[in-house]
């Protein structure tokens, strides 16, 4: 590889970070209230829940799949945490992980062994998980609260070194995510499966098991994010998570992961999440944009960022294609 190719590759993989840096720079110059410690702390905690969901999504997308159920699973995770905490904090933490993991397992089995298209499978579980949530909350009318003193609640609300504990959890999970994707056979196989599922199978990789585990992981991470968010707001709110899957997908793609699978980075996803959140923060900094224009601006921004990403990544690919 020539140096130019390497550089192009670097920019492609780090494109989202470059864009993020740019946006942050412009925002800092334009708005006094933007480059403050408080604001940074806010952005960090507000990004953390989406980031955890997007982490699972990154792996699923790298494997060539997609998980649309995460929004509902996230909501379900929160409700379950608030429900389970009455039987003890540990139950409150484990219940969402187990149930959401089970939904992920269902997705995984249907996709990996049933050979069904992930888009439609997870679209179905998006409905199913929401239905389950409504069923256990009396059609959504019961909101269970979480005791503020409980350590599980503190997992959402507490701070450490000025940053919310969910932020630290997110950082930890992403660190693990980086290692798993880059430095383990599991991650390596995931990349291979996304690159060519058929080839991976013929090369003797445990394609089905690996794929299934990815969906389990995605379900559990979404459930965990929901549980943390519930702890953060000390209540298992039933109306959260709608459209979260699209935010997560957008973050992953902005982060430079190919939706067709086979290539992507965990760090890029984090940058993608931060980008989405910074945009929202900037819109609030303006403070007077009507809600209609807010959507228009976010949509346009999404298109621009992804177009820039795609341009950078194609420059990279052009360097090498036979």
């Amino acid at each position: 590889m020539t140096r130019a190719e390497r550089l192009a590759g670097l920019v492609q993989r780090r494109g989202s970070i470059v864009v993020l840096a740019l946006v942050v720079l412009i925002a800092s110059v334009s708005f006094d209230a933007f480059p403050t410690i408080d604001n940074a702390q806010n952005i960090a905690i507000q990004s953390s829940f989406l980031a955890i969901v997007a982490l699972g999504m990154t792996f699923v997308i790298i494997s060539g799949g997609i998980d649309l159920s995460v929004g509902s699973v996230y909501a379900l995770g929160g409700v379950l945490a608030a429900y389970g905490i009455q039987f003890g904090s540990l139950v409150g933490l484990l219940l969402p992980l187990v149930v959401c993991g089970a939904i992920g397992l269902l997705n995984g089995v249907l996709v990996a062994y049933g050979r069904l298209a992930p888009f439609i499978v997870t679209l179905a579980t998006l409905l199913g998980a929401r239905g389950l949530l409504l069923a256990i909350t009396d059609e959504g009318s019961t909101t269970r609260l979480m005791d503020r003193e409980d350590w599980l609640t503190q997992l959402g609300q507490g701070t450490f070194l000025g940053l919310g504990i969910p932020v630290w959890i997110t950082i930890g999970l992403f660190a693990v995510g980086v290692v798993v994707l880059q430095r383990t056979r599991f991650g390596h196989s995931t990349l291979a499966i996304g690159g060519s599922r058929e080839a991976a199978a013929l090369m003797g990789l445990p394609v089905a098991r690996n794929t299934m585990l990815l969906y389990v992981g995605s379900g559990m991470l979404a459930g965990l994010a929901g549980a943390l968010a519930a702890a953060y707001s000390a209540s298992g709110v039933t109306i959260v998570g709608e459209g979260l899957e699209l935010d997560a997908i957008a973050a992953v793609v902005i982060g430079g992961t190919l939706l067709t699978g086979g290539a992507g980075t965990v760090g890029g996803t984090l940058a993608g999440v931060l980008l989405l959140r910074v945009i929202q923060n900037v819109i609030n900094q303006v403070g007077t944009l009507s809600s209609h224009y807010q959507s228009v601006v976010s949509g346009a921004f999404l298109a621009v960022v992804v177009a820039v990403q795609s341009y950078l990544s194609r420059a990279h690919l052009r360097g090498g294609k036979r």
Partner: protein
Amino acid sequence: ACTKSEDTGGGGGSTPGTGGAQVAQTGAADGPTCDLEQYGAEELDLSNAVVGFSQSEKEANPFRIAETESIKAEAAAVGVKNLLTTNANSQLNKQISDIQDMINKGAQALIVAPLNSDGLEPALDAARAKNIPVITVDRKLNAEPCQDYVSFLGSDFVEQGKRAAQEMAEALGNKGKVAILLGTSGNNVTTDRTNGFVDEMAKIAPDVEIIAQQTGEFARDKGQQVMEQIIQAQPDINGVYAENDEMALGALVALRSAGKVPGQDVQVVSVDGTRGAVQKVVDGEMYAVVESNPRFGPLAFETLQTFLSGEPVQQDIVISDKLYTKENAADEVGNAY
């Protein structure tokens, strides 16, 4: 992915033309109060302050449009230096960050239209940390008044459901089959308006049978579609209770295209008081509309100003709900939003 609109609010006296400001329910004025000392905030002159308004849903239905407009207009009238507005687009997490962002941007007082009664705790904590007064409008928070927030302005949704039930019972002569078009699942407003209606109906007119409860998601097209299905399955239906005007208007279209004459064959009652629905009462197609007045601006700023100048304010300012019926609709339609 997309969000549903829903509306809530409190009704009150109104003046002609663009409609009137809200009036607090008389008799509620002797409830617990809150003042600066109790809450732990500083005196402040609103004209020269930065005030933040956090809207919960897109301004894409009459209630939200009127609510935001009313706040903006009053802020200008009071001479607020800078009014920050945000919209959570029906996402709870966004509302939390919106409020945090506004605090961070220097908001000195906040008016919040909560998306949900629970779950805003982190945002309230952030305000608490800086002793910023928070007035909540249209939906009551499950939190400690005068501690987590100053006071609440709004109406009683359970009461709205009850009054709708009373109207329906009257319209049907205490006997008949009624379908309920529910709001969005999981929404407090849906729950309260349903419970109020169902409980009251069981009490005052046990012979009124509730034969269907299906969600129309507070949207007109969904209301229409669901109504079309119900009416096929249950052609002998006598009444429709819609939990907002939009669904009621959709249901009217469905009823008419199924060959029913609304107002004669089927009685329709809804909650809201948008101009379109009140007009239908005038036209005799709807039996009654329980009003919800979204014009929180004057009352909210008045409460805020009173509080910030050091005087006590009521913790719960429940607004008196108006009712549009045959008798008054024609006169009042100009006041509807």
